[in-house]
C-alpha cells in the first residue's frame, strides 16, 4: 500500500508524542480503540479557561492511525473546546489522503478528541 507524503511525514516525525499528568484537574484524557482491533489511541489535552493549550498523544496502530492522531493533536492545540469538538474525521481523511480502508483511523482520532474533551469536562463537573 502506498502512503501519502503527509502520512509518511507524521509517521516519521510525529508531533506532540508524550503524556500529560492524567490526574491533573486541567488535563483531559481519552483512550479509544482496543488492542485486539489493532488500534489504540491515547490523546490528552491541557486546558486553560476554555482553550486547549497543550496536547499529547500515543498510538498503537498502523501508520495511518499514528498520522491521524498526530494531526489531531496539531489541530486542536490553541483551539477552544467547542472548536476541537467540531473537528470531523472527514477533514482528517482529506488532509492525509487516507484510502477507504483507513477511514476508521480518522474516526478513531475524532473519537479520541471527543473522549479527551469529555474527560476534562467531567473532571470540571461540567
Amino acid at each position, binding site marked *: *500500500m502506498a*502512503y501519502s507524503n503527509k502520512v*509518511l511525514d507524521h*509517521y516519521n516525525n*510525529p508531533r506532540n*508524542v508524550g*503524556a500529560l499528568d492524567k490526574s491533573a484537574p486541567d488535563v483531559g484524557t481519552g*483512550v*479509544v*480503540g*482496543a*488492542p*485486539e*482491533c*489493532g*488500534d*489504540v*489511541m*491515547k490523546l490528552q489535552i491541557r486546558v486553560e479557561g476554555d482553550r486547549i493549550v497543550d496536547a499529547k498523544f*500515543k*498510538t*498503537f*496502530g*498502523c*501508520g*495511518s*492511525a*499514528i498520522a491521524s492522531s498526530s494531526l489531531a493533536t496539531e489541530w486542536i492545540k490553541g483551539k477552544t473546546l467547542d472548536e476541537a469538538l467540531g473537528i470531523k474525521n472527514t477533514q482528517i481523511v482529506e488532509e492525509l489522503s487516507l484510502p477507504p*480502508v483507513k477511514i*476508521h483511523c480518522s*474516526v*478513531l482520532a475524532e*473519537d479520541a478528541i471527543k*473522549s479527551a474533551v469529555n474527560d476534562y469536562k467531567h473532571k470540571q463537573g461540567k
Partner: protein
Amino acid sequence: MKLPIYLDYQATTPVDPRVLEAMLPYFSVHFGNAASRNHSFGWEAEAAVEKAREEVAELIGASPKEIVFTSGSTEAINLALKGAAEMYRDKGRHIITSQAEHKAVLDTCKHLERQGFEVTFLQPDRTGRVEVAAVEQALRPDTILVALMWANNEVGTLNPVREIGALCHARGVLFFTDATQAAGKIPVDVEADQVDLACLSAHKLYGPKGVGALYVRRRGPRVRLVAQMDGGGHERGMRSGTLNVPGIVGLGAACRLAREELAADAAHAAELRDHLERCILEGLDQVHLNGNRTHRLPNCLNLSFAYVEGESLLMGINDVAVSSGSACTSASLEPSHVLRAMAVGDELAHSSIRFGVGRFTTREEVDFAAERVIAAVRRLRELSPLYEMAKEGIDLKTVHWQGGH
C-alpha cells in the same frame, strides 16, 4: 549491500540464474508445442517437458508418470480437492482439513461444502501443528479425503505428515498435502510419507511464477481425479491446455537444483534464520515466536512484537521487505487466519512479522534487518500507549476498551 533487502522468501523467490538460463531457449528457439507429434519442434518441446517431469518426480520421490503440470499450487489444489471429491463422492462426502491451511485449500473446501460435502476444519495447536490424534478423532466411515499442509506458509510449522499418511492409508482415506513451502526446503518423499496427492509451485523454489505441479499417486492406491479443465486432454486427461514449456523447463531445473543443493540451502537458511532470531531476541524484550521451535521450516521466522502494530513496523523498516499478519496489511481488516487459528490472541496477531530467508540471503543483510527492526520497535514502543500502560503495571487484559473497530 543493495537496498531494499528481500526477506520474504515464503511469498516468492527470485529465479535462480541457472534456471533462467535453462528456460531461455524454450521461448524463441525451441518454441514448439509439446503436443505436436509430427515434427521436430514438437518433439524437442516434448523431450524437454518429459525431462522436467523426471526432475520434479525425483525431488519428491515420485515416478514421472505421477506428475501433472499446472499453473501453480492454487490450480493443483483445486484439481486435487475438487477432482477427488467429485470422483469419490459415492464413497463418502466427508473431508478433513485444518483452519491453518492456505486460502486455496480453505476456499476450495468451502466450495465443496456448497456442493454437498461436509468438511471438518480442525483447529491446530498453539504452534500451528495438527497432531495425528486429532485427525484420527475426526475420521468417519464416510471420510474420503484428508487435506493437511506439509509446512505452513505463515509460521513455517511442519505437520506430522508421515504419521498422518500412515493413518490415512490404514483407513483407506486419500491424503492430500500442500507441499508448496516444503518442497526444496526439507526432504519430501511421497513414498515414505504415504502421500496420495501433493502440490508444489516453481516460484517458491527459485523457479518462475505461473507453473507448478500436482503429484497423483498411481499405485497403492491408484488415485483418480475428475478433470477440472476440459479440452485437448493433455496431462493424461487431468489438465487440458497447451503446456507452458519454458515454465515447465524452469520448474524442472529448479527442482534439480533444489534436490542437489537441498542440504546446503537448508543449512544456510537455518544458520541465517537462527542468527536473525538471536539478534532480535537479544535486542528486544517482549518478542514472541509464532510457530513451532522443533518442527519448523529452516527458512521461516514469525515473531510478534508486543505493543507494536505490524503495519506500522513494516513502515519503519521500509528497506527490509517482509510480511505482516496484521489486519492493516490486508483489505479485509482481519488479522491472519493462521495466527487466529493458533489462538495466539488478536493483539499479538496484529503485531506479527514473518521473515523468510533464502538461497541468496547474506549475513550482512540479516544483520542490517535485525538492526532496523530493533530500532523501529523501540521507537514505536515509545509511541505506544500499550507499552506505557504495561510499564505502569496495568494488565491490558483487565482494561475495559471502548470504541474498538
